[in-house]
């Protein structure tokens, strides 16, 4: 895995947990978008 190991692991954990709890597409897209947004904000600040 790349130097972004922690970020990737967090995303994968979120995905697996979301599927196990009973996947809801709209909620997942909203949370995923928020995560990517936070990632981008951290990078540009």
């Amino acid at each position: 895995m790349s130097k972004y190991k922690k970020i990737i692991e967090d995303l994968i954990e979120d995905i697996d947990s979301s599927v196990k709890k009973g996947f809801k597409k709209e909620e997942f897209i909203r949370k995923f978008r928020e995560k990517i947004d936070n990632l981008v904000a951290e990078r540009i600040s």
Partner: protein
Amino acid sequence: MKAILKLENIGQKIGKETLNFNSGVVTLISGRNASGKSRIIKSCALALSLPITSDGLLEEAINFGILKGDNAEYLPLVNSNKEKAFIELQYGDVIKEVELNRNGNNKINPPGEEKFLYSSLIVRNSKISNFISRGDSNFKWIVNVMSLAKDYVTIHDVVKSYLELLDLKKKEIEDKEKKNKEIKKKLDNLNNLKKKIDYELKKIEEEIDKIESELDPELRGKRSKIKDNIEERVVDIKEYNKEIKESENKNSELENKLGNSAKRLEKIRKKLVELKKRKVELEKIKKEQLTEERYELEKSQPKEKIGALKAEEKKLKEILEELGDKNEMECYTCHEGTLYRVKMEEKLKKIQENRKTFDEAIKKKEERIKEITRLINERNELSEKLNEIREKNSEAADLKEKLDDYEDQKKNNKSKIEFLFKNVTQDNETLEKLNQELSDIEKEIKKEEQFKPLLNKKSEIKSELISIDKEILNLEEEKQKGKIVEILEYQLDIQKSTDLINELEEILNDVNIHLNSRIQEQREGAAKKFNENINRLIKELNFSEFKEISLDLEDYNLKVIRSDDTMQELSSLSEGERDVIAALLQICAKETYLPHIPFLIGDDIISDIDPNRQKLLLNYLKEVAKRNEWFIILTKITDEDLTISEI
């Protein structure tokens, strides 16, 4: 176990009706066409499967007639003279309540499992049947729907859409860089041209000076001073303009930073509003009170009383069984008294009523305990939310500080620009006056026939220089714009954008690798489980003409291998064989993927199978029903009135 199906205004029948089914047996609903068989099983299927959200399953539901398609005006199961219909299905301690409206807005409580339609409903035009009858062996869809692969595929598509967006941005950056290179080339050309023209201008001015050196020295001296003054003013104006340009560029950068920070702050404020709302909701939950209430409820379950009632009920039932057809008998424990049927039945009825009351009370208590536990778990979320609020507040405060700082810088820049503009204006005014003075003096000392052509040439060259300067200015502005790219609503310079895109691509590609492996894992797991069950079923049902029926673990195509080891194409199977295989696959799907919902429903699946195979299938279904305590309900077309019987 018993199942009670209560219907109201379903299909052709107006009003209420109640049907009872027993688990552990095969129930056959038989009757002529349009006698009402299908509406019974459709009602069961609807109660057990809605709501349906997957596209493939929606189609299945519409085909089966339990949901309204786009071209239909009304929901098919609701009686055409009524606006609403109701279904209640009760089995064990599960009660499913459905309200159907003609316009298609249905309410179901609690929700069912949509996979029921693929795995527990055997009908002629089901997806499995349709695939088999048209010879399509690609069954990847079944392992997707019956496992978590479907969800991972959806997530994979979401990640893919982000990667496609990043790809578009890369293309945009490529185009901008290409354009910027072209602009640079143009600027270089213009600057070179400008140098040449400046040199030409200098030559002409030298020629003019040479001619003037022979003219009136006093006037020449005056003119020389004016010209020096003009040059100083021009240099000053150039410097001021350069500084103005730099300050404007700085302001442009600050605008972008302000824009980005303001957007980020807006998002944080929205999130804070949500978090604070949730905090208020959670604070309303009084944890200590609820914990105490739960403790009291748990303490107070009257287990002993129920135990006693159950024992007495059992005893009375035994006595009644012993009595058989008789109305009285000698008490077989004490051999002295008489046991009367009527009295025993009365007593049994009372005990059963008491038990029902107790059961209801216990059920209510258990529901309350469940509710309290849920609330307490939610309340425990509070400290997490408070931390999140603290973090977001701190982030918001930092951003606000940054924003204020940017605003100050912007203000200072603006003042500087205003001051410089003032200077430029003043110098321009002075320059105008000096040029006028110069022009007057030159009129005095110049002899038109000597100077006119040179002055005209000089004027032309100066005009050309002005237009070149204008073009350079426009290209510089375009170059400035071409340095900024918008990524997910943020304005970033090209280098930062490229770095960000590369990082995000790396992260998302790695995530997709993981997703692909999960999808593969889920599909393979589902297919293996399915294959084990289908081949066990073939043996148990004595399908000796088939050696193996299974899903390929790479492409999930259905393979049929005959007992002589030859591979059989689905399209070359006889109709009877296809019907049997379709029924087998459906039963197998049920046993593999949804064994915990104790219903298997078949609509007219046994009529066209040959009698021997029919007998084997029915015996198998009876065994499966008994073994798993399932309700297996089949329909059959006959030329009689509707009857419901156990076989």
